[in-house]
């Protein structure tokens, strides 16, 4: 039986199919170059949407760092060359990062509350036996 060491390990599914993977050789390389930006954006946007709470917290930290660095560059670009798009594009990301962090904290609090349940030892045994019975049935089939 797996011990619970207090660390929450959550599997983040990457269920984006690899149907966009191109073939090798010259044509494949050209196709890959065209497809690569679409592939990475769709895959990562999907992963962000289905991200579990503990990864959301980590991701929000990363987003704060990236947005902070790019904002600094944006300020330099704006002061030096009067170009605003880089600075303006990064401002909403601080809100996104804050929102993700707040959502993660709330979800972790709820998960923490739900960790303790009242259950009788006999009920636990019955539950485990049910699972083993089901597994036996599957193995026999």
């Amino acid at each position: 039986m797996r011990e619970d060491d207090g660390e929450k390990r959550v599997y983040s599914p990457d269920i984006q199919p690899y149907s966009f993977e191109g073939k090798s050789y010259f044509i494949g390389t050209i196709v890959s170059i065209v497809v690569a930006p679409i592939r990475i954006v769709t895959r990562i946007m999907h992963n962000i949407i289905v991200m579990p709470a503990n990864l959301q917290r980590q991701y929000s930290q990363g987003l704060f760092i990236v947005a902070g660095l790019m904002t600094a560059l944006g300020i330099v670009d704006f002061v030096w060359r009067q170009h605003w798009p880089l600075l303006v594009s990064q401002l909403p990301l601080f809100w996104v990062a804050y929102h993700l962090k707040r959502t993660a904290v709330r979800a972790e609090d709820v998960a923490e509350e739900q960790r303790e349940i009242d259950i009788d030892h006999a009920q636990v045994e019955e539950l485990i036996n049910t699972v083993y019975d089901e597994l036996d049935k599957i193995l026999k089939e």
Partner: protein
Amino acid sequence: MTAFLSFLPMIVAPFVLCIWSLVSAYVFKLGVRGSGIGFDYIVFTLVVVLGCVLGGVF
């Protein structure tokens, strides 16, 4: 039409740069199989940088 096309990069660029930052944060912080620093990310970054330079955003 020409004036609109000349201003188009300035409208599109903030959205593209926003997405680039979202992707970069994921890649650098949580890079997993298929979404880490690799061919896709390098090509995406090059496309964004080239687009911004050619569109006069940087």
